[in-house]
């Protein structure tokens, strides 16, 4: 064989392309039995069908024919439970891209939902007015009619002061700011910047409390996941490239990159490479160096480097692990970490998905599905009768809070509280 050794590398990279993982499917149906969407609606034929099965009928030279795949929420439970390594969700994301390429048209609604950063940039300066206005039912009905954004979908409140604005103008100038050789990079993503600056502040407080200097790169942008899930791969790739270029400098210096948004850090870790096919050395390095904040802190704890000067919190608090967090394949670091707090009892809710799946539950035609997906989760949260519940991912927090009325917080907020930092 003359073609073996020198081609090994080509072979390997070809094999890592998600579309070819269809070849691994043995039809066992585990993905379908776990799919949160297929379990509540017949509109979606299920991950096995639209994934590895339909993939065998897709010729790159032919047009896309199966609109029903658009009912995939992209939660990724299928890829996680597949015992054979079929990248089902990733395959569907790519098929959706092809679907909208065939249609030659992406609804304005999807384009807008895909641009969370632009929305935040527009809304944040008018936060007090915007937050009130967007709660007005007649306006929401109007928006639903014109745009197709469901009237009941949870709208987060804009933050009057952006996180980055606070970091640049307040924190950087603060004498209390930690300057250290131990540095960590904070990837704040859109939600922290425009909606939940307080989570970013809590993250910085916790990291600094543990002796880390926190770098917030100025040139970071939205991870691109909302665009990716709405089939705008080209726009998502632009954002991905900006982030990779921004973050790779720190990664090369050996710094770790942490984030509080589990979906956004998952994009850095996996989606850029596996869905957007940006599998170059820089992307791989950024992927390797990226951590969910709880994953990072738990590693510190395991190395004996995490401060444990927690004040007791005597409470039992429900916790939902989002699907996009579980897709990190790192276990559930938030639970182990929070259980270091004396007196705390974390009640892990047994539910796969809250249903919102990023922008999915905002869409008029999918909102009911999204609420049906989350039903069991909502009931379990309500049954705990707790005033507060915990979840790592922002859209999931908004969805659960909207559905249950329970105040939702990020694990890092609880840690900051236990450290006495708030």
């Amino acid at each position, binding site marked *: 064989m003359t073609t073996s050794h020198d*081609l090994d590398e080509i072979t390997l990279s070809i094999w890592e392309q998600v579309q070819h993982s*269809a*070849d691994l499917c043995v*039809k066992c149906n585990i993905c379908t039995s776990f799919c949160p969407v297929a379990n509540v609606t017949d509109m979606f034929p299920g991950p096995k*069908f639209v994934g590895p099965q339909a993939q065998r009928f897709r010729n790159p030279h032919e047009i896309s024919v*199966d609109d029903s795949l658009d009912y995939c929420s992209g939660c990724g439970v299928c890829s996680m439970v597949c015992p054979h390594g079929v990248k089902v969700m990733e395959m569907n994301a790519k098929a959706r891209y092809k679907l909208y390429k065939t249609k030659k048209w992406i609804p304005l609604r999807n384009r807008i939902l895909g641009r969370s950063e632009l929305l935040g940039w527009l809304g944040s300066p008018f936060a007090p007015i915007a937050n009130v206005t967007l709660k007005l039912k007649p306006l929401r009905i109007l928006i639903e009619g014109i745009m197709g954004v469901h009237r009941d979908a949870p709208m987060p409140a804009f933050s009057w002061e952006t996180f980055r604005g606070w970091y640049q103008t307040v924190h950087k100038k603060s004498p209390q700011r930690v300057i250290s050789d131990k540095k960590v990079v904070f990837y704040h993503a859109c939600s922290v910047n425009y909606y939940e600056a307080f989570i970013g502040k809590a993250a910085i407080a916790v990291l600094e409390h543990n002796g880390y200097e926190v770098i917030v790169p100025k040139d970071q942008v939205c991870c691109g996941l909302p665009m990716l899930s709405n089939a705008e791969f080209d726009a998502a790739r632009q954002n991905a490239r900006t982030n990779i270029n921004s973050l790779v400098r720190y990664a090369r210096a050996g710094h770790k990159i942490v984030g509080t948004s589990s979906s956004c850090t998952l994009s850095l870790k996996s989606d850029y490479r596996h869905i957007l096919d940006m599998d170059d050395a820089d992307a791989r390095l950024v992927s390797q160096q990226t951590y969910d904040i709880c994953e990072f802190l738990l590693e510190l704890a395991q190395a004996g480097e995490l401060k444990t000067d927690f004040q007791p919190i005597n409470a039992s608090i429900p916790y939902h692990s989002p699907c996009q967090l579980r897709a990190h394949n790192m276990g559930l670091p938030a639970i182990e970490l929070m259980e270091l707090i004396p007196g705390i009892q974390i009640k892990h809710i047994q539910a796969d998905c809250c249903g919102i799946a990023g922008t999915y539950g905002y869409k008029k035609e999918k909102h009911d599905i999204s609420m049906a997906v989350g039903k069991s989760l909502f009931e379990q949260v309500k049954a705990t009768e707790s005033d507060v519940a915990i979840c790592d991912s922002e859209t999931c927090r908004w969805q659960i809070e909207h559905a249950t009325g329970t105040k939702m917080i990020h694990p890092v907020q609880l840690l900051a509280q236990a450290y006495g930092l708030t």
Partner: protein
Amino acid sequence: MQKKSTEVLVIGGGVTGCGVLFDLAQRGFKATLLERGALSMGTSGRFHGLLHSGGRYAVNDPDAAHECIVENQILRKVMPHCIEDTGGMFVSTPDDPPEFADEFYQACHKVSIPATEISIEEMLRREPLLNPKIRRVFTVPDASVETWDACRSLVVSAAEHGAETLEFHEVTELLKEGNKVVGAVAINKVTGETVTITADLIVSAVGAWGGRLAAMADCDVTVHAGKGTMIAMNYRMVNTVVNRCVHPSGSDGDIIVPIGTVAVIGTTSVRVDDPDNYPIEEWEVKLMMEEGEKMVPSFRKFRALRAWAGVRPLYQEKGAASDLRAVTRKYALLDHSPRDGVDNFVTITGGKWTTYRMMAEDTVDLVCKKLDTTRACRTAETTLHNPHGESKYHTLGSRLQKLETGEFDGQLICECEIVTRNQIEANLATNDRHIINDLRRDLRVGMGPCQGGFCTYRVAGLMHKNKQLTTQQTNKALVDFLQERWKGMNTVLWGQHLRQMQLDEGIYMGVLGLDKLPPGLSGIDEKRVAEVETEGYYEVS
């Protein structure tokens, strides 16, 4: 005993026989076809699925090459619904003699095959998984063709002109009166009934079995059986037919054909004595996977679904050929009257699937001459009956689209190949047989990655309900089909496909307890099981 009479009796329901039947019927002959199994069950159903552009024969067999390109263009017009216009490439890999590429290119143009050289970049743009170290690439109008649909379309179109097709009728005897063949005796293999058919003329279109049939009429015909082994890969890693740009003699495993949901690599060429009995050998499978790797560097990592072999009919008048690939692929039409002194008997053999129509035309021209009539052939201008009602090229996505639009409705029974309950029930209503394999040929049931793992029990249940089968008949249908599926997989069981088979085994043995059925209810052929255990593999028969 049933008695029938017809004007022309065609024996053999491969594509040639079906083509002859349609041509005869269209020219106004009363014609009947006898096939010992189902249509296209012999060599016509055991090939790559390649509609040749002729490129493969351009250098060493220009006549055959020219026939291929002419017929290729005609078939695209008359049976578009059976053809996927994949296009083809001839690639010169680092393992191939570089000087052959120019020779190939010139030879193509001499016989009017529109070969065009494209850049390696363009090749990779069209087919990203091809070996980037390929040196030269030529595109040709190869395509893939769905043989079962084609044969079915031919007999249905023939039936519109009054022709009759009798499947599962095996000829046991040719009736002679003096030096004339006057008919045939056949056994209906479903009912066991004997049928005698008298005819003015008999056409033998039985391919590699031509020698045997001719012997029944006391004619000496030598048709070599050239075994070719092929492997279907689970996934279309290429969507264009890919041929190695090499001299076809002494070259094996050098064509990959994307057809339906699979990609088929083949073939070997080994002479066998018995066209009904030829094992697939380990070296053939190994060789194919290695050769595939030269065209697609990750080839061996893709899942091989099953292997099968077919026997090419290679006719040679004088003596035995030493190298099968050197035997012309041009067909042979034998009039046994001048040749052997046997009247009313004609043999058509050799040739390619691609040239079946031309072979049929020549054959029926000879029939006209022998029956002293002049009737023009119109098969090159007549679009065949399409049971699906459209005359577009077949596309890979069509089944998915039909399911999406609701054209295929009802429960999904075969998930891998997208076959619904309504399709199966409609098909079951058309015949009296209890064979799941017939559904496979008509609808592709059980042909996907799980190889019947998830659909066989569903189909058996539908048969039980719709045809009022007994428990034993249902079990037998189920077991027979699983055996048929498993025999094609035994030679390619490794990696992911082995896991698949373990899952399937778990379903049938573990969950359904197929091996624990009381004797007499199972339908399992114990003798065959014992044979398999000693052989280590199933023979393809």
